[in-house]
């Protein structure tokens, strides 16, 4: 009996067509044909085609659809960034390449490792240290102290602590049977969320707390501690509303951004105006004014895409995240070891929550907290960490596929 692996060449072809036509259109934006712009599209297309073909040849069992969805999100982010600021697009291209290397590294490591054992204690220490250093030395950026500058490099440690957090979560929930043996993990979570709240990086704090709640409940099924944590979480949110002015303003401008149009609400209003002016079909690539939205390159890229490509594409983008999440959960359910299950589930959960928090913030569904949109937003730290999460998912998918193949081979079957 043969289990057939479907190639996704059709999807890849459509993606490349989209990228090339969009870059061709953009190359006419400033009057005569500008070959340099189109060349960037060709280079990115070559990178994506190479990446897909090499990865699916070397790692036969990786989940191709998840990989291609991530690639597509990178492509639409690149096109939008290039349209708004060619220099940002070129930087994003570099980050896509670096992110792919990080993904392959994560894939290979996860494929070989069982559960990292004692190294988890060092991961915890490293995570706290990174966040702590950021709290002390950070340079303030848009209300959140989450950047660390070392010489010419600037990066966001919380993005990398995300990966460490997921590994530690999976390790403790899979190896400890009794709840009271998990105390180091609880302390680690509280420390991470606490430091993030203190450095006013509320988006990341929300992400860590939400991932903890979901993965803990899925991993242990313990309703008591989960409800207790939700209570603590709600209490903490309530307290921080009164303790930090930052939180208060965020909630106020969420309730009525028009009242503070001249000041803090300007960003949300501009985002909503951009989405509204795009309408269902969009203004057409290059015809809108997405650059008038503050931080249109990172947090507000969803509004920029919605303006120029229209609501249908914006909804399709959300649907892409949903397909990604469903496939991630299927891989988690298929995994044999509990550590792998929880690791993949955690990674999927984190990407899901992250996209929900930022898209929800942009469309004024929930208060806006600055966080990047996975795979789409400009930013090295964000791209690398999202790609590492993708690498974790693909690594476990590869593990699953190898075991499936061994089981089928026993019966004279195989996977093609």
């Amino acid at each position: 009996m043969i289990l057939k692996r479907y190639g996704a060449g059709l999807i890849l072809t459509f993606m490349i067509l989209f990228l090339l036509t969009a870059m061709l259109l953009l190359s006419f934006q400033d009057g005569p044909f500008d070959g340099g712009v189109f060349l960037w599209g060709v280079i990115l297309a070559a990178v994506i085609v190479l990446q897909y073909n090499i990865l699916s040849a070397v790692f036969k069992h990786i989940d191709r659809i998840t990989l291609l969805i991530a690639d597509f999100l990178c492509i639409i982010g690149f096109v939008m960034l290039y349209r708004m600021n060619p220099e940002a697009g070129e930087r994003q291209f570099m980050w896509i390449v670096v992110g792919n290397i990080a993904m392959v590294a994560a894939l290979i490591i996860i494929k070989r490792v069982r559960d990292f054992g004692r190294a988890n204690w060092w991961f915890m220490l490293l995570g706290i240290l990174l966040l702590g250093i950021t709290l002390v030395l950070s340079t303030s950026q848009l209300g959140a102290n989450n950047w660390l500058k070392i010489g010419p490099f600037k990066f966001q440690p919380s993005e990398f602590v995300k990966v460490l957090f997921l590994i530690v979560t999976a390790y403790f929930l899979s190896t400890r049977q009794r709840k009271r043996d998990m105390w180091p993990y609880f302390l680690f979570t509280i420390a991470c969320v606490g430091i993030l709240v203190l450095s006013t990086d509320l988006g990341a704090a929300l992400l860590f707390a939400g991932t903890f709640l979901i993965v803990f409940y899925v991993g242990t099924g313990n309703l008591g501690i989960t409800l207790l944590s939700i209570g603590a979480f709600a209490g903490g949110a309530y307290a921080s509303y009164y303790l930090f002015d930052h939180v208060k303003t965020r909630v106020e401008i969420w309730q009525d951004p028009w009242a503070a149009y001249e000041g803090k609400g300007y960003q949300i209003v501009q985002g909503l105006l951009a989405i509204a002016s795009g309408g269902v079909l969009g203004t057409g690539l290059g015809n809108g004014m997405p650059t008038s939205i503050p931080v249109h390159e990172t947090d507000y890229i969803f509004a920029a895409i919605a303006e120029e490509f229209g609501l249908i594409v914006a909804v399709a983008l959300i649907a892409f995240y949903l397909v990604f999440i469903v496939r991630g959960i299927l891989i988690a359910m298929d995994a044999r070891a509990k550590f792998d299950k929880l690791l993949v589930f955690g990674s999927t959960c984190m990407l899901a929550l992250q996209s929900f928090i930022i898209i929800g913030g942009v469309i004024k569904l929930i208060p806006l907290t600055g966080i990047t949109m996975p795979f789409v937003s400009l930013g090295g730290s964000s791209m690398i960490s999202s790609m590492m999460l993708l690498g974790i998912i693909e690594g476990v998918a590869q593990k699953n596929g190898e075991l499936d193949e061994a089981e089928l081979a026993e019966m004279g079957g195989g996977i093609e």
Partner: protein
Amino acid sequence: MDGAIYEVAAYAMRYWFILVIVGILVASIYISYKQYNEKKYVKGAMSKFFGYLEIVGGPEEFIGDRFGVREQNTIGSSQHADIILPDKTVLATHALLYVEEGDMILSPTSRSDTRINSRRAINQHKLKTGDIISIGDVDFYVYIKRTRIGNDS
């Protein structure tokens, strides 16, 4: 291309972009769905098999054939048997092969010529991987699955 023409071109191209992106979305959902169904089907079918019998001796045209072993199997030359051997040394219902508490058991019917590793079998016998069972003139290699497809939990 001057500004006005670009604007018209971009305006027209948006339909193409919507079409392509929705196409990618529909294709990825469709392929996911098909892959999921096929995997479910293959895994479901595979989990019904406990092992296989491979013909290693006997009439030339049978050699190399494989039969999956389910929970209850009858071996014989009749059309109603699960493992059909159209050979004149095989009785209509020659032997029963079934799985009981994780063991695969061969139970020959009376008067049948059944041997396990060249020794004549009359009563029920447990089989293990590597045994050669002979049904009439046909020799089978027995393989019993070590693992069952499924999760550890």
